[in-house]
């Protein structure tokens, strides 16, 4: 039925729920790890995420929804499907379900066949998650375009940052793709954590592909976000070079013409486009304008951001 064996977590203090789920599938198909409280499960969750989490809304030490929020707000754990067990579906009403990103829920008393099937479906649905960037798990192009187009149509003001790395190709050529991927994963974390936690209002980070990323924040916040991204990236990126290159401050690699050349340590360039008073008509307007600005940002070999000055 399921190919290889899956590892699911169940977080519940209740013996009856534990007994029920353990009876759903043979242990050769699904291996369950049981945690009686949220606290005990958290470290395991963060260190070795399972294939699915079934969480009791009634945990002794925290709300089951708090566990959902923690998992779903981190790009590296977000793909793990989470199903909540509630006493009454009414407790889901009025919650912001789009933000919660809950995969499914079960209501007590659990119906034997239906419950097992729904949990399995949640697992498969998550496995089909197509749009996420396979490397960083950040939302990909489809989500990015939808998000921008939606904001444009609702005539909402926003700042859209296009991010890419300078001298990434030289790094990739010199150290190989695996090392390049490490830098992309680091960049994703820097973007996520430079946007989130500081910004009030709209916030979004997406991965277009390769070393191209986007973020969306309110207009008033965008300069602070750009400065934070640059400070964090510049501080951390030297750790990804070999000690002798880091010491020298340059990397020996071949340029696009195949000639041996010295390249600076990677930098990050950001081009920011604004939507003020509904001036953008279409997603294409935003990306075309951003490409022009990016050329400006690229003239500086150091990390830099350029704001669209067009009024």
């Amino acid at each position: 039925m399921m190919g290889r064996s899956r590892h699911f977590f169940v977080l519940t203090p209740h013996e009856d729920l534990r007994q029920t789920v353990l009876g759903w599938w043979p242990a050769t198909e699904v291996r369950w790890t049981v945690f009686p409280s949220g606290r005990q499960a958290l470290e395991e969750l963060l260190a070795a995420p399972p294939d699915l989490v079934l969480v009791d809304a009634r945990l002794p030490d925290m709300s089951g929804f708090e566990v959902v929020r923690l998992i779903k707000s981190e790009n590296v754990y977000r793909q793990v499907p989470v199903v909540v067990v509630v006493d009454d579906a009414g407790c889901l009403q009025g919650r912001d379900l789009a933000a919660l990103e809950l995969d499914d829920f079960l209501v007590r008393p659990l119906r034997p066949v239906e419950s097992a099937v729904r949990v399995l479906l949640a697992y498969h649905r998550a496995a089909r998650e197509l749009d996420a960037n396979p490397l960083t798990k950040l939302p990909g192009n489809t989500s990015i375009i939808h998000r921008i187009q939606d904001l444009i149509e609702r005539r909402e003001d926003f700042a859209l940052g296009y991010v890419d790395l300078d001298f990434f190709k030289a790094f990739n050529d010199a150290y190989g793709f695996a090392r390049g991927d490490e830098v992309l994963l680091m960049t994703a974390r820097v973007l996520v954590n430079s946007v989130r936690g500081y910004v009030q209002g709209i916030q979004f980070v997406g991965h277009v592909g390769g070393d191209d990323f986007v973020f969306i924040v309110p207009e008033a916040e965008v300069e602070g976000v750009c400065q934070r991204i640059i400070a964090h990236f510049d501080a951390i990126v030297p750790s990804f070079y070999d000690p002798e290159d880091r010491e020298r401050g340059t990397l020996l690699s071949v340029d696009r013409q195949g000639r041996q050349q010295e390249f600076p340590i990677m930098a990050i360039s950001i081009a920011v486009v604004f939507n003020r008073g509904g001036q953008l008509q279409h997603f294409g307007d935003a990306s075309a304008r951003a490409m022009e600005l990016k050329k400006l940002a690229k003239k500086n070999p150091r990390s830099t951001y350029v704001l669209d000055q067009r009024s």
Partner: protein
Amino acid sequence: MPETDLRTEYQGRLLAVKELPSLPAVLEEVNALVENPNSSTEQISKVIAKDQVLSAKVLKMVNSPIYGFPGRISSIQHALVLLGFNVIRGIIISTTVFDAMNTAMVGLWEHSQGCAIASSTVARVIGCKDPEEYAVAGLLHDIGKVVVAVQMPEAKQSIDELVRQEDLRYIQAEQRVLGFAHDRVNLWMCNHWNLPPNLKEALAYHHKPMSASLYPKMAQVVHLADFLTRLYEVGSGGDDQVSALDPQVLRALGITAGAWEELLRQVEEAFAEL
């Protein structure tokens, strides 16, 4: 993740990769900062850097394969940026407070803090880049002692007795009881936690720094800092002797007689602020 335990010669018992203790005061302080949206990563990393166990956990997490860049990050502040407050909060919530640690190893916390400060001072005086990374190595240099004290309290008692009865250094007593000492435990933990090679070598070679092959400088600095911390009697590393200073280390670090006096003055000043 497969967990490989470390077999000791103490009744053939194993050191297990499992929950390590942490100190309550630091946890509360970090928690308060993390809850406050106006806190900076600098503030939080300074507090975390005071606690060896929490520091180790944060570095372990950011260097785990889940994040995709194992063995790259050795700065607490960089780790905070990459993990984000959400994950830090998760690490703190999951860290069980283990009051027994203070009694298990009296004075080790102060010794570790002293060694951290001495390491960054030495690094700064001899002109190393990123002296704060040296502080992390100094802070964690004796973490292997904590692991043994917490997981095998009876073995820890035998070590203490040997130190008292035969006037041995702690490291010699460890070798007699376990078949190896905390530097070996450090190496095992660093491997299991994917810590970067510079930290790994500093932790595993701080007693024989000239044998470190990749990053001898960090091991040499921690070796010297450990010596200075014991010389000035900051905290206790488990015995009351001054550790042996390898004279080759001073030469390797380029510390002349004049620089030595300046170094002592600065370390003394730094200790005074503890």
